């Protein structure tokens, strides 16, 4: 019986191409930089895909590329934020629909964390609209996004 694919890392990138959050689920902490690099290189591929499929208006960008033992998938929301997923390659066939569900869960987590009314409590109005600045500025309060992403990671990786 083939093992289910493991979720290795998730990256959120804002509309201004700056990273919002990069979260890894691998036991080896030194690989974090690798996933930052993966998120960065995905940006080029995403731009290309977006330019070529702009007529269709699909949010799911599909399989972007594969690297070593990882498969990278991309998603772009109407609000122009991008989500990049790195899955550990296995023999199992991965259905597109499943990846879409995973992206929907991640986007929902982002939306719920951003809707926290106390996120912008003591921040100046210019900063308030930029999610990347919010991560830095609203540091303690943005923990909820990290917690939600961790919950999703657990749901995928620790399947019963």
């Amino acid at each position, binding site marked *: 019986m083939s093992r289910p694919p493991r979720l290795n890392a998730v990256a959120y990138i804002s509309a201004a191409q700056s990273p919002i959050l990069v979260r890894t689920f691998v036991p080896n902490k030194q690989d974090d930089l690798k996933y930052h690099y993966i998120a960065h290189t995905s940006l080029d591929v995403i731009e290309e895909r977006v330019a070529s499929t702009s007529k269709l208006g699909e949010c799911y960008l599909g399989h972007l590329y594969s690297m070593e033992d990882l498969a990278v998938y991309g998603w772009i929301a109407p609000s122009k934020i991008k989500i990049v997923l790195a899955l550990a390659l296995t023999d199992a066939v991965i259905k597109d629909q*499943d990846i879409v569900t995973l992206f929907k869960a991640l986007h929902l987590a982002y939306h719920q964390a951003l809707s926290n009314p106390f996120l912008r409590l003591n921040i100046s109005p210019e900063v308030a609209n930029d999610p990347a600045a919010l991560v830095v500025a609203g540091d303690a309060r943005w923990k909820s996004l990290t917690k939600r992403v961790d919950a999703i990671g657990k749901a995928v990786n620790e399947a019963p």
Partner: protein
Amino acid sequence: MSIYGPSASSSLVTPALAALSQDSNRQVDSVALDYLLIEAVRTLRHSSKIATARIRATEEEMIAEGLLPPPAPLSAVPLSIKADSVKDAVASQREARIAEEEEEALRVRLEGMGAIVGSNLAERYSKDKPRFQDTLDTVKFICKDLWTAMWDKQVDNLRTNHRGVYVLQDNAFKPLLRMSSPEGSADALRRAKIYLAFPVGVIRGALSRFGLNAVVTAEALTLPQCTFQVKLPKGQ
């Protein structure tokens, strides 16, 4: 599909994940929003009056102690008026200026509230939709989905000059629908103006979430009809 047949553990989507991807469909009575907006204007007006009075008192203290330069003199009063009425005229000008400042502070606060609500609602309702092709699509989304979510109807008329200016017209705008004043329609119009600040903020917030930084203004010529003008800078 593996040769052992489909089984729950070879699928990426566990029941827990499926649960996390569904948005809870919580709903709120739309009447609650109407009441909230009415009360918000009243309460914030009172609150901002106190806040600006406090700031003014500190300013006056600092001027008295010489820490701040005195305020610029008000516009010149015509010399033909007698001494008493000069004092009255200056006092009433000062009062008018204070009232204007307070109204402006209230408007900015309501618009700020609207911006946050608008951007969050825009994200929520656009989650399941395909990406927008261009600016017109985004404005149409606001006219249809956002307006229906907040005011139970769509915008009645959308006009554009295709150069970045959009005019949204609503012939029976819900917040203005049941407004009237015992002093006549002109007075009702004047007092209704501030209630347009929140919707202006909603439109501005929704557009900014999609990356469009617009300048939004609202106008009401006859209640309950009103128009919102959206100006997008070149290149967007």
